[in-house]
């Protein structure tokens, strides 16, 4: 397990007498530091050759309830690429303020804006502390514990359709005529101005929120000098549904269908993250039945192929190669058919459970997958002949949007974006969750970190996924139909059910996740005591942090590169906004 050892933490305690160690029986030890010493301690962690926690993972807040004093606690998760371990550093936000970390990790910029938006924590020294998801004039901080789950219903929003037919609706047909606050055009104008306070040139080009090239509802602001971008900012949040808030009121199996709606293109992988994290919190991650492990690994990799095919199709479509889109969707159709047959849904899958999967493979499932894999490599070769050495493709991709290794650490980039820059950061290798420790695969790593490398890395990832799926099928073939696919706890205190009723989480905290096609989706669960509902359920979205580097890459580039860079970063708005 890639977590800092107790010895190393105790050495920290010897060195700094203000460090408090929070021990955890599952091995996820964390340290607590007072706010005054927070930054100097982090600087030590980042620079000391024995620790080298230079990669930013996540920076968030826990609300301990209105009665607690101090109420808010900052939680910082860091990764050391040198020693391949993580650490959680916590600090109390007295007076609802915290020092900014943007001068140490650029990735903290959006994390702090999100914390301000959701919890109302002020970060001293942040360059432009504006809201992340909500509009600027929104008065509440929704993730605070005293904010009701339904929100404050303030605006009257009757349905015209229903009124015409019948106003006297009864039972379930009835609906609330009041709605939570909605932004007006004026609000949006204020938001837009605050996001880009120092406009440099005459024209600000708005791209989105509804534009086919943005792959969702992202709103880009480009401050243009001729064709070149001087300043760039992104307004996201149009798809914000508050999954973290919803999760605080559900049991862990019920959260899984909500994660389907985050990264809706690779929903299996999103499910996987929640399962991996909850299993680690319960301490059962090594006891999951072999069959479930292999089925999960196989499905996750099929989903990765599915997601990368959609990425390849739309990416090529955006750069003007329509044929690619049709070809990749043909292959996607087959994978979706397989998903439909095995799990019951094509898109929002909800197949994985904490403790295994909800049903065994149906008759013929492995044959269908094998049949798909038989001619898939030739199809992939077709795609490569069309694109890889095509001169237009080379011109539009090479040296566009170069991400350096330093950027990866400082922005907390993960997934194919990090790997294309030469950082072999892959949770499948580092954490070896499920059956990834037992299958053989390579992690593709790029050289320069430009768009072309990101393209090559993803293509290679598809090939490696095929390899993994083949090995899983081989292994599954040897198993018996009576092998269990769901973990039955022996421990009386533990209760895990397939339908989720009564599934309990244990006291403690955990940060774990899975390597998704769009980067690491980490799940941080904090439980002050045993219970059904998670007290804090943080989803560290890979796409969110990956998108953050977009403005930096765009500055000084022509506007046409926006498409290439956005496509190769490959965010999904469902996941960035959550």
């Amino acid at each position, binding site marked *: 397990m890639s977590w800092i050892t107790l010895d190393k933490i105790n050495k920290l305690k010897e060195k700094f007498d203000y460090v408090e160690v929070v021990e955890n029986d599952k091995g996820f030890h964390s340290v607590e530091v007072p706010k005054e010493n927070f930054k100097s301690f982090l600087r030590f962690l980042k620079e000391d050759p024995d620790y080298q926690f230079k990669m930013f993972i996540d920076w968030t807040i826990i609300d301990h309830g209105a009665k607690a004093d101090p109420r808010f606690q900052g939680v910082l998760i860091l990764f050391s690429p040198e020693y391949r371990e993580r650490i959680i550093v916590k600090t109390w936000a007295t007076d609802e303020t915290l020092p900014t970390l943007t001068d140490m990790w650029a990735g903290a910029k959006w994390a702090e804006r999100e914390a301000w938006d959701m919890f109302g924590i002020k970060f001293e020294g942040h360059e432009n502390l504006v809201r992340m998801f909500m509009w600027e004039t929104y008065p509440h901080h929704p993730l605070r514990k005293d904010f009701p789950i339904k929100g404050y219903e303030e605006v009257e929003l009757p349905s015209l359709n229903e009124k015409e037919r019948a106003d006297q609706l009864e039972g379930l047909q009835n609906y609330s005529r009041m709605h939570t606050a909605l932004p007006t055009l004026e609000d949006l104008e204020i938001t837009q101005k605050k996001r880009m306070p120092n406009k440099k040139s005459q024209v600000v080009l708005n791209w989105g929120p509804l534009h086919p090239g943005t792959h969702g509802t992202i709103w880009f602001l480009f401050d243009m000098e001729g064709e070149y971008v001087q300043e760039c900012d992104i307004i996201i949040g149009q798809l914000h549904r508050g999954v973290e808030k919803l999760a605080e009121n559900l049991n862990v199996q019920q959260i899984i269908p909500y994660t389907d709606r985050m990264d809706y293109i690779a929903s299996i992988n999103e499910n996987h993250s929640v399962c991996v994290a909850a299993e680690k919190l319960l301490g059962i991650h090594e006891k999951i039945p072999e069959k479930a492990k292999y089925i999960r690994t196989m499905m996750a990799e099929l989903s990765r192929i599915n997601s990368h095919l959609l990425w390849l199709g739309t990416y090529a479509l955006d750069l003007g190669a329509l044929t690619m889109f049709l070809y990749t969707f043909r292959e996607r159709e087959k994978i979706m*058919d397989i998903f439909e*047959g095995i799990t019951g849904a094509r898109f929002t899958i909800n197949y994985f459970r904490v403790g295994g999967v909800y049903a065994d493979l149906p*008759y013929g499932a492995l044959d269908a997958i094998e049949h798909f894999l038989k001619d898939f490599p030739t199809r992939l070769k077709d795609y490569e002949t069309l694109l890889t050495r095509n001169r237009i493709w080379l011109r539009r991709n090479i040296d566009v949007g170069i991400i350096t290794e330093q950027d990866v650490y400082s922005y907390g980039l993960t997934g194919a974006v990090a790997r294309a820059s030469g950082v072999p950061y892959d949770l499948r290798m580092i954490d070896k969750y499920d059956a990834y420790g037992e299958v053989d695969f390579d992690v*593709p790593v790029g050289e320069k970190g430009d768009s072309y490398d990101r393209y090559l890395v993803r293509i290679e990832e598809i090939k490696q996924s095929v390899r993994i799926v083949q090995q899983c099928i081989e292994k599954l073939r040897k198993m018996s139909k009576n092998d269990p696919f769901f973990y039955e706890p022996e421990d009386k205190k533990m209760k895990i059910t397939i*339908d*989720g009723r009564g599934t309990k989480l244990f006291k403690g905290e955990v940060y774990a996740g899975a390597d998704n096609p769009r980067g690491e989706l980490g799940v941080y669960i904090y439980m002050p005591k045993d219970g059904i509902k998670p007290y804090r359920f943080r989803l560290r979205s890979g796409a969110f942090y990956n998108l953050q580097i977009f403005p930096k890459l765009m500055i000084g580039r022509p506007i046409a590169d926006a498409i290439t860079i956005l496509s190769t970063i490959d965010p999904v708005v469902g996941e960035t906004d959550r």
Partner: protein
Amino acid sequence: MGIKKVGLNRNVQPQTITEKIFFLDFMKGLKTTIKHLFRKVITVDFPFELVEPAPRFRGIHGLRNVDGTEKDDFEAWVKKLKIKPPEMGETRCIGCKFCQAACPVPEIFIIKTEKLDVPEDHPHHGLKVLSQFDMDLSKCMFCGLCTLACPTICIIHTDIYDLSSYTRRGWVLNKETLSKIADDFIARRGKEKYDDKSEWPDWQKIWDDADMARAKAWDNNPPKLGPNYADQQ
């Protein structure tokens, strides 16, 4: 397990001069495209041609009726919840509300039972029947948790996927409609999905391999379905 380096000059060679002069990269691409001209159509002509959803497909819900294929513990559940023992053709629902408890959005359901109004010497005195079972499918995520929670396999997913309506009224289904949907589904495809104890059997297929529309999407070369595991028939 290892690290594979990719990149221009690493696993991809840059264009040679001959390629550049004679546009060989375009030629190769065109060859692939032209090859596809002679392939058969793979798209389905919806709505004249329909792909049959897989047996596990999670479509609109249905409420199953008693038809002699209940699980062994059905009687025990009926007794436990003091429900009037259902006869053939009556609903299997015992009003336990497990589906509502498992649902991430419990507001979907309104489930009510009422006591039978019968004299004291009647054998059904003191027993209850299901009086209301409304589902608002406009709030449903079709996650399938309710069907897994149901102890009597009463609430099921059918293969119906078109749920469009002009008003909210169309999405709220009551127990009569739900029963009818389930009866229709069981008559059509019950044998494919359930065994004689209403469980998912291990011969339940990934999809119906005689479905010609689905075969089309598989390049008119659909897979031959066989057993998954070594000891499966």
